[in-house]
């Protein structure tokens, strides 16, 4: 998902997006292909910050296979991430036979890891058994967002509890697959410092149930309650300094793709140093080496520190 992207007409025969990138694979850097299939979209669709459901449309099984095959033509990557604007494991989005067909084709193409995403309620024993047997090393990404049930329930509106995530994790592991936990920096209604603490705490609490953590830096998606809060000055996307702070204090492996870094709607610092920070964060995702942040300096650091200090007393006002 790119931030502030122009809307193109929805086409049931074309994926929402396809791109290639580098990814950490068992300590190596490997080529990765990401496909976001156009499906009916997330059926929960009530999270405060998420506008992905708007990308959905009614598509047939045939459409999905067509999308998949056009995106995987000439596939040479070792890692394939196959996502939807919802849950790949929701059979209302991706019928099970389509799902298993895709996974078998990826396996046949020699892909070593397939990353999918799902809400925990679709992570069922039978589903995972069928998924794990159809494909190669499966990794299931689950949007835990935070280990704090209050924030997840009342601020994000995620609709499941930490124990639901733990149970899903157990099922994924039982099938021999891997778990990736997505964490959100920063949910609305939290101060900058409060969000950093929440993310670090969540990373520590989620790590025992996840093989890898993925830190999502919140950006403002269109049509969301978060966007309205942002327009009212009630939300500022996280500082990249904060992202670095979390990455330095969270257990590894923790990856982070600073989507939209430097944009007004994305995570940003002062505007001068955003590109350098985004670069360092991307390097950290591949190398897991905290020293990539050494020497990362900018004159906006005292400002960020002041923001953290003062937002503890501002009663809901982001200091922008």
């Amino acid at each position, binding site marked *: 998902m790119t931030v502030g992207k122009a809307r193109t007409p929805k086409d049931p025969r074309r994926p929402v997006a396809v791109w290639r990138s580098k990814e950490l694979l068992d300590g190596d850097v490997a080529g990765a292909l990401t496909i976001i299939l156009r499906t009916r979209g997330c059926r929960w669709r009530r999270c405060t910050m998420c506008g992905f459901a708007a990308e959905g449309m009614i598509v047939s099984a045939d459409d999905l296979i067509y999308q998949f095959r056009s995106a995987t033509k000439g596939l040479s990557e070792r890692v394939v991430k196959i996502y939807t604007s919802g849950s790949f494991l929701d059979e209302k989005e991706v019928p099970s036979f389509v799902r298993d067909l895709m996974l078998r084709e990826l396996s046949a193409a020699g892909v070593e890891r397939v990353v999918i995403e799902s809400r925990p309620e679709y992570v069922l024993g039978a589903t995972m058994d069928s998924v794990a047997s159809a494909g190669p090393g499966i990794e299931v990404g689950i949007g835990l967002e935070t280990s*704090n049930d209050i924030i997840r329930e*009342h601020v994000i509106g995620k609709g499941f509890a930490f124990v639901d995530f733990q149970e899903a994790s157990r099922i994924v592991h039982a099938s021999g697959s891997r778990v990736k936990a997505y964490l959100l920096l920063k949910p609305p209604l939290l101060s900058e410092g*409060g969000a950093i603490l929440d993310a670090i705490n969540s990373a520590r609490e989620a790590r025992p149930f996840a093989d890898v953590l993925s830190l999502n830096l919140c950006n403002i998606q269109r049509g969301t309650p978060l966007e309205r809060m942002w327009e009212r000055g009630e939300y500022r996307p996280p500082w990249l300094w904060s992202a670095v702070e979390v990455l330095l204090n969270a257990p590894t492996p923790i990856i982070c793709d600073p989507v939209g870094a430097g944009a007004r709607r994305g995570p940003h610092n002062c505007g001068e140093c955003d590109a350098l920070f985004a670069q360092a964060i991307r390097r950290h995702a591949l190398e897991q080496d905290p020293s990539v942040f050494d020497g990362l300096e900018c004159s906006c650091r005292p*400002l960020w520190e002041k*923001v953290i200090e003062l937002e503890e007393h501002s*009663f809901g006002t*982001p200091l922008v």
Partner: protein
Amino acid sequence: MTRYFEVLRRDGPGRLGRLRALGEISTPTILGKGEYLQNKSAFDGAEGDDAEGIRVLPYVPSSKILQPSMKISIPGVEAGPSAFVTSPYQRPAVSADIYILEGAGTIQRGRDLVRAILAIREMIAPDSALYAPALATPANLALLVYLGVDLVDSIKMEIDGYYGRYHSRDGIHTIAEMAELPCRCPSCQILQEGGEEEAGPLIARHNRMKLAEEIARVREMIREEMLREYIERQVRVSPEYTAALRILDQEHRYLERRTPTLRRSILYANTAESLSRVEVTRFAERVIERFRPTASDVLLLLPCSARKPYSRSRSHRHFAEALGPRRRHMHELILTSPLALVPRELEEVYPAASYDVPVTGHWDREERAWLLGCLDRYLDKNRYSRIVAHLDGELAKIVEEHGIDAVFTGGGKDADGLARLSNAAEEATRDARRTPNPRLESFRGRADFFFGAGAGDLLLCEAARVKGHEVQSQDGKAIVAETANGTLALSIEGARMLLPLGCYQVTIGDFLPRGSILAPGVLSADEMIRPGDEVIVRGERALGVGRAKMSGWEMAESRRGVAVELRRVEAI
């Protein structure tokens, strides 16, 4: 349960108060960051109970867009002042000494600011303090206080320093774009010299100092009872603030309920907003609705004078001389801006006796419409067989073109003009009634003006007579007296006579008060009472008279503070 905050003085919705926390804090004030307030939201999962000073009760952060539905229990506070985080969208769940406006710093538009503060103010006790965090700047501070905010902080000053935003009473400047710094504080000197020192903390220090200067200025304006005048010029620094004042002025009930009927200061009508001031509209409303002019067949319209009361001016002395004995046959009405109509009987009443307006001879559209609207209503209610208009210039033209059926003398203060006035008066008052006792009639009119229609007749029903500055009954007992500030003061006898009217009464419990009556002692009070009003205090054991220090609704809702300063009391 409000026990730690007390309002001491008022100037419109703005107040001076006292907060008992960590010693004693005079408000309005700038709270030090984290100095008084312990802040733990429900998301932090912590229970900070080691608070010294003001304790912020547990709360669930929320915004208009995102209101978590979670329920939390709020423990009672046994001792010490408490603060409750609240918003304009929901009624506070508990009573507290201080209410904190959540997300105050995000309010951008003047309209939203007025709405938010008024909405909260209407939901909380009058003797509770309102704190607007991360919002105050030197430019908006006076407006915040005028709206009814008691507590602010310097968070915005501090962070803006680090953003390179330089504050002054005129607004925000980007320091990088300033050639010269219009301030002589030590921080600015260092900044101007452009040394090695980090700019952020220096600008922050300058900003904080400007805010501190402004809060002192605002407090002083309240003491001088000049806050409204100050606001009218201060909001000019930004259209947004000016809009806020205009929108506030449309909230007439909010302002009217909080505006005193008497101020020590001179009312400056310098701006367009002055026309909509409560003092102005209230005066006009009472002239038309309550006041009963001395019975007369002939109305004389006169221009105002710079000197107040008008009678002391050279021009009005000359008018009086020119009128001579014919004066007793006419009722005099002075046309002026912004008060519109001032009957001669009321020229010593606030604000008629103490206002000032830029005089150019030109009447703008709003002033005209206001004047003529009031005049039409007045003439609708009070009928005269003849009108003499001794007006000149634009004012004469306005009245004449409006179709007022009058003899227009052409006005003037010179010998010719005065002669025309004299002749016109002579002509108009031929076979007109003569007022038998103008001073007594003047008391009757003023009693109606202050206490409501009918008050004059109740007070003067017997064969009352004027002696010096007071009205006495036949047996020489004082009934009512005029005071130096233009108000009327009742005697116990006068109070007793006014009781049937049922107005301006404060009912107290079963005790004999002395000195002043505190709000907790008030059982009920007339809603109409405003600070400065003469009131009657009645209880099972006492009848008294005094001056209201707060509005009637405030007396009923407050737990602290002086409600009435008693002047006389009698056991019954």
